[in-house]
């Protein structure tokens, strides 16, 4: 794995493939040998790049001992390898300073408990990010959407969509999801090996499900599939293209919203959101409605689509566990939870939380107004919570992984993703008993310049 040895990232010359949930937290200064410097919060630091004043306590000049910032992510993403730096930090420096490719310096938490505190505790919030030069992997900063809101604003939007994604509602979609999965695998088997699992199964399955749930015509998939990449692109697309794709996506969703108004009886999630807005304008603005629906469509594309091949890839690398799963399909739900823990979907942590007051985390006093990242991937490899954390073990009895996050921003589609992943894994494992890569591993192409790690293609035989 190539270790980045520059102080600041050069996003032009470096590849950042995937990022979504990587984390690491360490304890105070448990004997770390690295030099520490006394860091004085300068007055200028209390002013964001946009010239907006920070909170009062961020303007203090009280000195604290903090380590120098490391460039982050720690390395160019290498397949699904978790950078060993996270383990070292959990051990020796659970709260560390990091500099992402874009935005201001931040704290990074790597231990499970600390990550949970940072992403879930009400003393931290996302709303201040809008007024700050937030630490990020993307050139573009996001100024809207649920991930830039705190309760009660966040609650207002979340509540409108949460009900469509409860375990009970999602369970009702399982037979239809299984039907789609069976048909896709039938088609692939009909084509004969080698075939691309990404193209024939992993991509169409979640897209068809989210289209049917939302009420978006599946026939338009080639168009919005391209636009959806804008949501997770870091350097894979030029900035102007990202903006163009987002405009296309919002425009397209706006058209569907207008259609629902012409035919108000349509019983799908988009129709329900349009009715929610039209019944009470205070609940949802028109922009929020369009961005919410577009965001759900895009999220339905770039996450489960990416995780299905990642899961299969990991299982192929753990043949003993794969054999157990084939022998006993009742292990599928536990296997999906373990794979959610094990696979570092994100290239690096993002969506920093801002401290609303002074908070002690991992032995470090985080000042009000300071941004803190929590590495979900690191938390998921914390040996104090998960025994033998770097081993894929389908028999874990307790698996409180943070693959979907924690707190109010816990993935709204988590139950849907779980169900889709269960259906995909069980169908692939049982229908394709001789499943194997059809090309040497070195020839697999991995995503580059995106927030998530995953395979561009996965040629398989069976």
């Amino acid at each position, binding site marked *: 794995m190539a270790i980045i040895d520059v102080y600041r990232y050069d996003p032009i010359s470096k590849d950042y493939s995937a990022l979504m949930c990587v984390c690491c937290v360490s304890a105070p200064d448990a004997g770390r040998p690295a030099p520490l410097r006394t860091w004085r919060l300068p007055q200028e630091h209390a002013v964001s790049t946009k010239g907006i004043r920070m909170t009062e306590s961020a303007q203090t000049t009280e000195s604290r001992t903090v380590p120098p910032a490391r460039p982050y992510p720690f390395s160019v993403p290498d397949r699904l390898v978790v950078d060993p730096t996270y383990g070292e930090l959990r051990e020796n420096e659970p709260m560390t300073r990091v500099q992402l490719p874009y935005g201001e310096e931040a704290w990074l938490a790597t231990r499970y408990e600390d990550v949970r505190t940072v992403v879930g505790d009400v003393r931290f919030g996302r709303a201040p990010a809008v007024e700050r030069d937030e630490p990020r992997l993307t050139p573009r900063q996001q100024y809207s959407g649920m991930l830039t809101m705190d309760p009660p604003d966040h609650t207002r939007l979340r509540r409108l969509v*949460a009900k469509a994604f409860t375990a*009970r509602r999602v369970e009702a979609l399982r037979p239809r999801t299984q039907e789609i999965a069976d048909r896709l695998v039938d088609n692939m088997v009909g084509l004969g090996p080698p075939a691309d699992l990404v193209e024939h199964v992993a991509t169409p399955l979640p897209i068809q499900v989210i289209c049917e749930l939302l009420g978006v015509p599946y026939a338009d998939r080639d168009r919005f599939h391209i636009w959806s990449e804008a949501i997770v692109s870091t350097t894979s697309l030029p900035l102007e293209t990202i903006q163009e794709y987002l405009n296309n996506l919002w425009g397209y969703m706006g058209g569907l919203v207008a259609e629902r108004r012409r035919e108000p009886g349509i019983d799908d999630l988009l129709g329900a959101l349009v009715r929610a807005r039209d019944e009470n304008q205070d609940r949802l603005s028109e922009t929020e409605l369009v961005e919410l629906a577009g965001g759900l469509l895009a999220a339905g594309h770039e996450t489960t689509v990416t995780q299905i091949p990642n899961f299969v890839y990991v299982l192929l690398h753990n043949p003993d566990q794969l054999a157990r799963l084939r022998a006993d399909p009742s292990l599928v739900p536990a296997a999906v939870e373990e794979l959610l823990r094990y696979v570092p979907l994100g290239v690096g942590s993002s969506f920093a939380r801002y401290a609303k007051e002074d908070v002690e985390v991992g032995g470090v006093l985080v000042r009000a107004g300071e941004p803190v990242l929590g590495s979900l991937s690191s938390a998921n490899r914390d040996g104090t919570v998960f025994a033998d954390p770097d081993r894929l073990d389908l028999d874990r009895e307790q698996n409180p992984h943070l693959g*979907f996050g924690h*707190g*109010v921003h816990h993935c709204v589609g*988590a*139950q849907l993703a779980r169900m889709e992943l269960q259906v995909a894994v069980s169908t692939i494992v049982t229908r394709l008993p001789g499943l194997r890569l059809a090309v040497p591993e070195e020839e697999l192409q991995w995503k580059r310049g995106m927030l998530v790690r995953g395979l561009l293609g996965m040629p398989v035989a069976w």
Partner: protein
Amino acid sequence: MSTAWRIGVDERRCIGTSICAGTAPEHFRLVDGVSTPLADVVAPSEVILAAADSCPVEAITVRDTTDDRLIAPQE
């Protein structure tokens, strides 16, 4: 309008997302990874309904103390 609600958390259903504790910190907290109401009987408040409606596994129920009528989660 009833004067009191009873909050119930089904701890076998709860998966510990902490969405409730983030949405209504004055009413819920996580104890050993499981949501726990700070008080079982409370004065009616919209934020409690929001927390119950936002739970992905519908582990939270809110009932009227007088007639045990289910107030949340709503269908």
